């Protein structure tokens, strides 16, 4: 596995610095993310995990005064190249947020919203697409009879799986998840973890989490961040059993954070 690194990488950052105005939130991040893998980003609050995640699909563009230095190469192309359309980038790199954020629309319209507006699916295919996406997100059985009902009436865990289904309906290459289970109960969390395990057969997943067990359970590689720097990036097993850096060990064992 270690050898074919290069062939399987899908997105990587090269010497990336990130600024919110004058505040430098990320320093010199160089990181490869591998195809059909789950990569976990961990680290204490405020260390820049969300910043990095949002940088990968240009969601940080929305923040006034934010600035990126360095390159983010998605299949070899720098997504910060002036000629690149951020809208197109986000089509290929989907995102699931910490708090479930369905639209105040029906379940069906939530799923089909993206494909319909971006023209990535035919009208006649929408129903099949909705079913497929909901099945992928393991929500189909719970909602198949109430597709017309408002998504706001679902439970938090169901809403989050709906948001995952909504992202999957765009058939992205990469799925970014920012603490997707932090607002959920253990059962919903377990469901989403199972789901991630299933999804990684098709998708590349990058997930931010504060839950060490979760990172250990679901990820193949883990990156540990501290105050805007990537301290250690290694196979998850190594990080959690025998990390190279003392700081990583201290964090994982809860000695600081």
């Amino acid at each position, binding site marked *: 596995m270690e050898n074919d690194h290069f062939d399987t990488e899908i997105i990587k950052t090269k010497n990336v610095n990130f600024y919110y105005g004058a505040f430098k939130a990320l320093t010199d991040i160089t990181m490869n993310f591998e195809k059909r893998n789950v990569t976990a980003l961990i680290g204490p609050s405020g260390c820049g995990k969300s910043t990095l995640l949002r940088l990968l699909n240009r969601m940080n563009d929305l923040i006034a005064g934010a600035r990126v230095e360095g390159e983010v190469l998605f299949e070899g192309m720098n997504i910060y190249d002036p000629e690149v359309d951020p809208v197109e980038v*986000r089509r290929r790199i989907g995102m699931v947020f910490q708090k479930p954020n369905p639209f105040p629309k029906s379940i069906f319209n939530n799923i089909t*919203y993206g494909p319909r*507006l971006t023209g990535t699916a035919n009208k006649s295919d929408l129903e099949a697409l909705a079913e497929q996406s909901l099945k992928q997100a393991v929500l189909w059985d719970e909602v198949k009879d109430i597709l017309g009902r408002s998504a706001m009436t679902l439970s938090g865990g169901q809403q989050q799986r709906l948001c995952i289904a909504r992202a999957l309906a765009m058939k992205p290459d990469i799925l970014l998840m920012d603490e997707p289970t932090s607002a959920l109960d253990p059962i919903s969390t377990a469901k989403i973890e199972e789901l991630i395990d299933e999804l990684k057969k098709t998708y590349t997943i990058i997930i931010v989490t504060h839950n060490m067990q979760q990172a250990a359970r679901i990820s193949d590689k883990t990156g540990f961040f501290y105050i805007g720097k990537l301290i250690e990036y290694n196979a998850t097993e190594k990080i959690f059993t025998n990390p190279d850096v003392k700081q990583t060990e201290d964090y994982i064992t809860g000695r600081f954070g």
Partner: protein
Amino acid sequence: MTRQTVSGAMKRRYLKQHLFFGAVRLSAIILTLALGGILFYIIVNGIQVISWEFLTSPPTDSMTKGGIMPAILGTLYLTLGAITVALPLGVVAAIYLTEYAKQGRIVRAIRVGVNCLAGVPSVVFGLFGLGFFVVFLKFGSSILAGALTLGILILPTIIGASEEALKGVPQTFREASLALGVSKWLTIWKIVLPNALPGILTGSILGIGRAAGETAPIMFTAAAFFTAKLPGSIFDEVMALPYHVYVLATAGTHIEETRPIQFGTVLVLVALVLGIDLIAIIIRSYMRRKKRW
């Protein structure tokens, strides 16, 4: 502190609080009484002349008899015209200010300008309408000129209400849509605007309700002293309720004689404005019930 002084302090505070609430309650009662009194006075004096006849026929006998139908219709035309012009313009301006423009000095300056505009006396709008629409653009005294003038008058209200409503749409909705690779413009059109619409409509309708009762802006731009014939096009003059009251109460030779008609007209005007407000309130409560975020 001993128990005695503690309870003493508490009693004093309790008393103060009572006095304060008493004062608040009193001023609320006075306000309600004043409002109720005005309304009562209008109804008592106006109700005698109200009849189907009064609402559906034109004035006769130098406006000392007959109804006020042309004025009702004129006010409706002017108000509808104003909102047709001002609503799209105001919403577009608000979208620009909240969603597109870089939040900085220029936007702040525009906001201050809009707020100042909202504070300008309505007669100034009337004079502007006279100079610009009636004379310069040669619309003459007409529905068009009056509606445009009223439209400008309520534009700040509509922009303000729309901005508030747009800002009220959770940022997470925008993010969710953009993260799906939907363009900014489509995100605004499909997500932001529909969710802001109840607020926009409520604010705008309340604004237009106020404008419907204004005399000064239409006095020089649209309102006719008297026309028995109904307008045939937007370039015709119309009668209007507030101006009709003004005319009857000040300019006629039969001021005392027409008192009942004046009160009747005022009653109709008040009912119209309250009716418009009621529509806004209904829209708001209906949409609130539907909204779940």
